[in-house]
């Protein structure tokens, strides 16, 4: 047990906490409460008056087929993004763990994509996959795939998932590398002597011991896929074609900022908030049970 720190002055602890609290209040609680407040109001077309409508906004949003489509898109998009960004990062980290020469150089290269802004990452992928000028699109057509993400919904989805996952790989890679390094080498050696071949060693020793890292990344990546991928979708597909890549967070933006449906948009952000809170709670409640910390 670490001894409790006792401050001589009663107010000093609060003073020290104040900057953090202020930031949380201004940037989280205030906007969140605004969203809550807006979600029960209906505004007139000119934004002059608003009146209380109770849960009407929620009812309308949840009955809207476009909204339900967006839920489905988000579920597919988030699962795919989190899965691929973590799986690929883990694969790369395991490979990098075996590199002996130029280790630092290799890792540095792997981390760079994280420094790329979402919109720029999106642009990069647009250029690569643009049906008329993209070099990778050219390759795809060359192998016989009729590549047209501007018209084909599933292909557009593949593109935004690729871009979103690609950007997050570096971050996940970094954590996986650190996680792998924290596993004592003698455990791997003991498993080898115990007759486990590399693949078996990975699944029975390395992967379970990485569980704390994997769990942490699962939470982070889910949140990332839900919220932080707005920039990528905005730049790459703008939610289209049709509404094939319109995720919840993108719909909040397009309904609120473009269509000026403040009540609907606020109701959606409240629902989104509830979904993410619930998802994280589920992850902590059920997935974390299977995680052993050291």
């Amino acid at each position: 047990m670490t001894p409790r720190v006792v401050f001589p002055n009663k107010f000093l602890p609060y003073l020290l906490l104040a900057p953090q609290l202020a930031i949380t209040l201004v940037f989280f609680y205030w906007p969140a409460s605004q969203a809550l407040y807006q979600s029960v109001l209906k505004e007139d077309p000119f934004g002059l008056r608003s009146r209380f409508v109770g849960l009407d906004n929620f009812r309308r949003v949840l009955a809207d087929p476009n909204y339900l489509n967006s839920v489905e898109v988000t579920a597919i998009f988030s699962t795919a993004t989190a899965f691929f960004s973590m799986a690929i990062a883990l694969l790369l980290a395991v490979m990098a763990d075996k590199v002996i020469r130029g280790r630092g150089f290799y890792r540095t290269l792997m981390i760079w994509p994280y420094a790329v802004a979402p919109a720029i990452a999106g642009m990069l992928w647009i250029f690569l996959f643009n049906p008329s000028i993209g070099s990778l699109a050219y390759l795809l057509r060359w192998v016989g795939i009729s590549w047209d993400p501007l018209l084909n919904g599933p292909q557009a989805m593949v593109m935004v998932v690729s871009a979103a996952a690609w950007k997050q790989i570096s971050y996940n890679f970094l954590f996986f590398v650190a996680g792998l390094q924290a596993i004592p080498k003698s455990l791997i050696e003991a498993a080898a002597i115990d007759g486990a071949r590399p693949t078996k060693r990975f699944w029975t020793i390395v992967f379970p011991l990485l569980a704390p890292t994997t769990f942490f990344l699962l939470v982070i990546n889910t949140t990332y896929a839900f919220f932080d991928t707005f920039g990528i979708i905005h730049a790459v597909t703008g939610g289209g074609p049709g509404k094939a890549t319109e995720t919840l967070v993108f719909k909040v933006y397009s309904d609120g900022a473009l269509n000026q449906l403040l009540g609907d948009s606020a109701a959606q952000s409240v629902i989104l908030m509830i979904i993410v809170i619930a998802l994280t709670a589920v992850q902590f409640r059920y997935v974390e049970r299977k995680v052993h910390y050291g």
Partner: protein
Amino acid sequence: MATVDLKDVRKTYPGNVEAVKGVSIAIADGKLCVLVGPSGCGKSTLLRMIAGLETITSGTVSIDGKVVNAIGPTDRDIAMVFQNYALYPHMKVYDNMAYGLRNRGTPKDEIDRRVRATAKTLELEHLLERRPRELSGGQRQRVAMGRAIVRNPKVFLFDEPLSNLDAKLRGQMRVEIKNLQRSLGVTSVYVTHDQLEAMTLADLLVVMNAGTVEQAGNPLDIYEKPASTFVASFIGAPPMNLLPAGQGGAAPASGAREGAATIGFRPEDAEIANAGDAPADALALDAEVEAVEPVGAESFLYCAAAGSRIVVRVSGRAAAQPGDRLRVVARAEKLHWFDASGRRVD
């Protein structure tokens, strides 16, 4: 059951660092061989080469007459107890012990029978459902032993298995390892830097220094006839007293060996005599007591003599006090002679 043969085994790390410089050892079936030496002498590297965890630069390692250089640790049918035990932290004790058997496709009921039998031998039965972090150091050590034993391998390898235990537990486990090894009759290689462990455990003691074998043989033979000043000062506690011999150094009145540069005698072989009361071929030194260390059954006198420090063991309580002057005598048959390169002269 197997023999282990090392023939001119060498290990060179990148950058031309030679960790092991040509070691040949033959371990007979069922014997316990202890590799002892100071840190960095190559003993752990040698053990890891037998395990297959390090590649062998040149020479051969054979287990049961078969060269295993090209065979990985997975297929060598060996078991190893690591210094930090290397227990799988996410598995219960039971699964830790069963892991190796499962990997080799042993039937489930057979695994259960063997794990429980081994747990019984090691008194681990009540711990089978616990995880390693819920165990004490001594218990972890036993689990590591159990994990090695349960597989019934050809060879046991021990990499300083007792160095993380407290002194009392270390003594207990030492006896236990010896008994287990003898009753199971599995050929074993044991690495330690503790000369007491080495002396008490070994059937074959191999003293290593700077990547080479200084001396190999029966522990008591090595104690009685150390082949070099290195072995003389490494085996035995406190170590042998070594004094420069010859011109201006210490020497008996008669019977000095030709070409000897160093003369040595064990602390327990020194006697405290009255002035002038020594045979001509014995080494007699005038010593001044600098410190007295009573241990209970015996006491050690740290003295200055002939320009060096020597230790003298006397049984029971020592009558001497710091500052006393004594005459220390070592009889001719108790003297060890070494030449200028440190080799024994007989």
